[in-house]
């Protein structure tokens, strides 16, 4: 056997490789560990906290938004109610005003009609009186002329005619 186990060199730790491994690993640990691994791990942790904070803030903002939304809805509903109330009031007022105006107008119109009717009656009566007087006078003149011609004007007859005329008017 040329190569016995004696030539399985990798299982025999030689001092040079032990020494250099210590040196290089210490370099690796101190330099890369300190100047790269540690800052990276810290940056990752910071990022993790930042993300968590951002998520928490978003949750809080969401809750706040929900609150605001509810408040808005409430306000809106209130406003709507108010509007309905105001509209109703306005309608009532206007209806009342219209009715009042109508009543007043009706009353006024009634008064005017009444006045007109009174006036008409008065005018009619006055006109009737005048017509009566005129007719009486005309009848008297006619009768006077007739009687002048016939009786030559007797006062007893004049009285009698007047009495007749009165009777007519009374009728």
């Amino acid at each position, binding site marked *: 056997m040329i190569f016995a186990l004696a030539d399985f*060199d990798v299982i025999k*730790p030689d001092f040079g*490789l032990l020494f*250099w491994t210590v040196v290089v690993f210490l370099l690796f640990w101190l330099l*890369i560990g300190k100047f790269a691994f540690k800052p*990276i791990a810290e940056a990752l*942790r910071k990022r993790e906290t930042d993300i968590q904070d951002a998520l928490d803030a978003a949750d809080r903002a969401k809750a706040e938004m929900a609150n605001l939304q509810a408040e808005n809805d409430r306000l809106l509903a209130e406003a709507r109610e108010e509007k309905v109330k105001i509209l109703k009031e306005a309608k009532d007022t206007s209806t009342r005003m219209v009715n009042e105006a109508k009543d007043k107008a009706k009353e006024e119109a009634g008064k005017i009609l009444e006045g007109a009717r009174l006036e008409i009656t008065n005018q009619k009566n006055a006109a009737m009186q005048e017509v009566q007087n005129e007719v009486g006078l005309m009848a008297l003149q006619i009768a006077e002329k007739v009687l002048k011609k016939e009786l030559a004007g007797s006062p007893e007859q004049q009285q009698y005619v007047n009495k007749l005329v009165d009777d007519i008017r009374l009728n």
Partner: protein
Amino acid sequence: MAQHDHTDHGDGQDHSGHDHPHVVDHGEGGHHQLGCGLHGHHGGDFDPGATAFHHIADANIYSVGPFGIPLPCIVYAPGEGWDFFMSSKFHYDAHGTGTHAYNGYVLDGGSIKRVDDDNFPDGLVEGVEIGHDSEGHSAMCYQDKLYPLESKSTADFGLFGGGITGFYDFSITKNVVSMLAVFLIMFFVFRAVASRYKSNPDRAPSGLQGFLEPIFVFIQDEVAKPFLGEHYLKFIPFLMSLFFFILGLNLWGQIPFLGGSNVTGNLAFTAVLAIFAFIVVNINGNKHYWEHVFWMPGVPAWVKVILTPVEALGLFIKPITLALRLFANITAGHMVIIIFVSFIFIFGKSGTVPAGAYGSSIPTVLLTMFMMAIELLVAFIQAFVFTILTTSYLGAAIEDDHAHEGAH
């Protein structure tokens, strides 16, 4: 000379670098004969296991495609002091075996060995032949004289066939270059990403940042946070360093034609990371943790006598399994790929049966592609497993009484 020994080394695309023609010139099936009765390492029948061992090993050369780039050598021999030179001094061939010796050091199959003979001259010595003797030991022939060679010292205390020898190799090897390359790439990539987080903190990630952030966040959220809770940020640099260093090197080793360095499949590398994990875990262990290790509350005294040694042993078994798991997984992956590629050489009988080589190349390529896809997955899984287990040990060490009671 030792130029007829190219019947070896199926060049797994993952561990390539020897794109020289595989000259078929072996004698009667025997090893190539060198001077002084030495045998060449690479003679005789093709040996896929040996090929795999060679390719997964660390080396003092960085092979990129057909080029063997020389690397700086730093060696120390007690009593003789330090030596600094480039591995090009050895005049190595495609297998990383040199024909020159320098200050008593030679290059054998990519790794430095030392001539175990004080009489061998210092300085540059040309014309050495390196092979193995009849017992399989590395040896060198120079001017018809046989010199034994010794390997570098290893920290396995003889457990795996190594041990303390006459010299120590602190060279910038292929694995060290790979580690430095991955370190630099990761440094610039993550600096760029980190500066984007700084300059654009409130923007969505884009580009490189967008590619790396999910991986980073995955380790952070699925590994660090569940085990460490609010303490996670303190340990992020360590855990991310473990994960991205292992992942980077796992992937680096899988880039075809880039040396295929097997850093995470080397016990030295995984052991160092496991030791760091052990230290970080136990330094941060609180009173509660140590109480559980040495005097488990809530169990009868005689059970404590049994539990305490088990728990104490467990302190060490945890990092050992961490190191072995990563090492074994990555090494196995590299070896399987090399051995699949070796089928071409096995069926082609090292080139003597072209029909066998051509015929086997199609299923071999398909199998290798399949394995590489699996290895890509393994690269992520093993980096993840190492990190999550370390984090779970750490989590057990730092958890307070309250959390523990809740867990029961």
